[in-house]
């Protein structure tokens, strides 16, 4: 990391990052098959999000898939923790609720590989600015 010297540089950096890190979609040109984000706030972790995170990683490694897995904060659906958001190329993100290690494996094998949804989808009922 180097220092950002002025506003102009910050704008440039933002534009570059915007292209590179589309946080909720898959960017053109990279060959990811999915993006996964695991909600890891205190309440997520308390309901087992760490185990979910690890299960996702090990299944992705086992199958040698090109999937990007990152953590994020509270998605708001504490009643359905652990929650996991999955984005497939050119599709709207889908949020799954109550994802324990087993469901984590299901998400990869059913949704990411076969395109099948599993029960427990949490509709996103908010808009973000």
């Amino acid at each position: 990391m180097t220092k950002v010297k002025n506003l102009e540089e910050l704008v440039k950096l933002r534009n570059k990052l915007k292209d590179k890190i589309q946080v909720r979609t898959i960017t053109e040109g990279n060959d990811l098959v999915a993006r996964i984000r695991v909600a890891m706030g205190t309440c997520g972790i308390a309901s087992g999000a760490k185990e979910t995170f690890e299960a996702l990683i090990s299944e992705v490694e086992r199958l040698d898939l090109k999937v990007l897995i990152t953590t994020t904060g509270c998605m708001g659906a504490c009643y359905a923790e652990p929650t996991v958001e999955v984005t497939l190329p050119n599709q709207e993100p889908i949020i799954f609720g109550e994802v324990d290690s087993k469901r984590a494996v299901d998400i990869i094998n059913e949704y990411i590989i076969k395109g099948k949804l599993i029960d427990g989808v949490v509709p996103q009922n908010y808009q973000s600015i």
Partner: protein
Amino acid sequence: MIHTHILVCGGTGCRASQAKEVQEELVSLIKDKFLTESVQVTTTGCFGFCEKGPIVKIIPDQTFYTQVTPEDARDIIEEHIIKGRKVERLLYEDPKTKKRISDSIHMNFYKKQLRIALRNCGIVDPENIDEYIARDGYQALGRVLSIYTPAEVTDIIKQSGLRGRGGAGFPTGMKWEITSKVEATQKYVVCNADEGDPGAFMDRSILEGDPHSVIEAMAICGYCIGANKGLIYIRAEYPLAIGRLLVAIEQARKYGLLGRGILGNDFEFDIELKYGAGAFVCGEETALIQSMEGRRGEPVIKPPFPAEKGYFDCPTNVNNVETFANICPIILKGAEWFNSIGTEKSKGTKVFALAGKINNVGLIEVPMGTTLREVIFDIGGGIKGGKKFKSVQTGGPSGGCLTESSLDMPIDYETLLDEGSMMGSGGMIVMDEDDCMVAISKFYLEFTLDESCGKCAPCRIGNKRLWEILNKMTKGEATEKDLEKLIDLSHTIKDTSLCGLGQTSPNPILSTFKNFKHEYLGHVRDKQCEAGQCKDLLHYTIDAKMCVGCTACLRNCPVGAISGEKKKPHLIHQDICIKCGICYEKCKFNAILHQS
């Protein structure tokens, strides 16, 4: 390969209006038409649109069908899925334009929530500053430093109408202006992350999910008031939030977004964390400052206000976490944009932690002016287990309990006060018919008692007396004289306590007394608890008609209060029964009654 998904809402609201039958019908039609390989039906949670349920959504085309009946399933499959023609009559009709809306992308109004303070929570990786920057992070600070004077920025915040989210709702721009005008060589920006209300976790979630939004806003505040130092007072019980803040501060320093000469300007700002031990009263700003200085966390008399004499007697601007989280969008999108959201005197949105007897417990953010009914029944998905709504508590231990009659009131600072509660920091606890209001008051009083710093007598001693009276009531030992004393003393404590804690501690009593007077009278006059919560007022009996004589209760009663023969109705001996409730739990035949 599956190419079409049909999502059917499985929330309680929709289930109650036949969503399950709709789903079964859809599944069987898909089988009939040999579509199982390409079309899949899945259950989802509540869409927050329960009043128009059952909801069916089709992806990928995002069609949003409302009030779908089992008979409609055929059209959805035959018309929409097979022929690709949307079923017009099931599409949502915009109440204003009377037009049918074809997909959810064009129906923002079903999204009752608007996330401003939570804009990045659940979206960015909080430990990666690049993701924050990619979503316009630090642009507000950059703009402020290069384009605006401090007075101009303060003016934008004033114009926006933003008010403090920590409880009292003081206009933020005005606070910044006051602090900026005090002459001093050293000033401070303090972020109040003490968050002590039981059940509240709004601030924690913001810090855990989007720490940079607070850091950036504190720097902007520093520029406005002329401070080069920021302090975040955070309770040590929030280790994850602390960890993420430390990572974020370090990353911001590396990019030169904190420290000296920020973004090539002659402006210096840095942030340090101060840890609290988790005392509720330390959330009060003067106690908070005392605690940061290393003294006992006790409130001191205002004035002087922190804006004049705060941390080590320097002018100090204290704002809440959520207040700060609103700042950057206001700078980037303008005061008018913010001003256009909300009600006349309460602008923008408010984050609430929804808890209690509600289906969708969670963190929500709604525009000011949203009604309590929308929050509880649409976003919250209604009351758990199909029970009856009784009351909603807002404002934490300083707030009050509102009833059915307040449900259609718009949520804003003034309305909540008028209704006998307050906005507070955003805890919202929903209660159902099984909750006893006297017991609820007692719960909050217990909290206040634990948290009172003890500095002044009305709060230290008075609250203890209140608790004792409530305790007598729940045991059926209180008289009407006690009830009078309870209300009298409540007013005295409100009027004579030194700080906000004591001044508001009787609020739960006063508001429940106003709205549920008959319950207080029931406990006092008839020694009855209608909600069946106060153990001492309950009587356990066996309904001879329901009892099959399984002996489970008899075997489990710890004091041998139950007698009876196998396969014959059992009997509870009231003189021996200690009302432990074990028999009630053990009976599988609903034969044990507990009534007061």
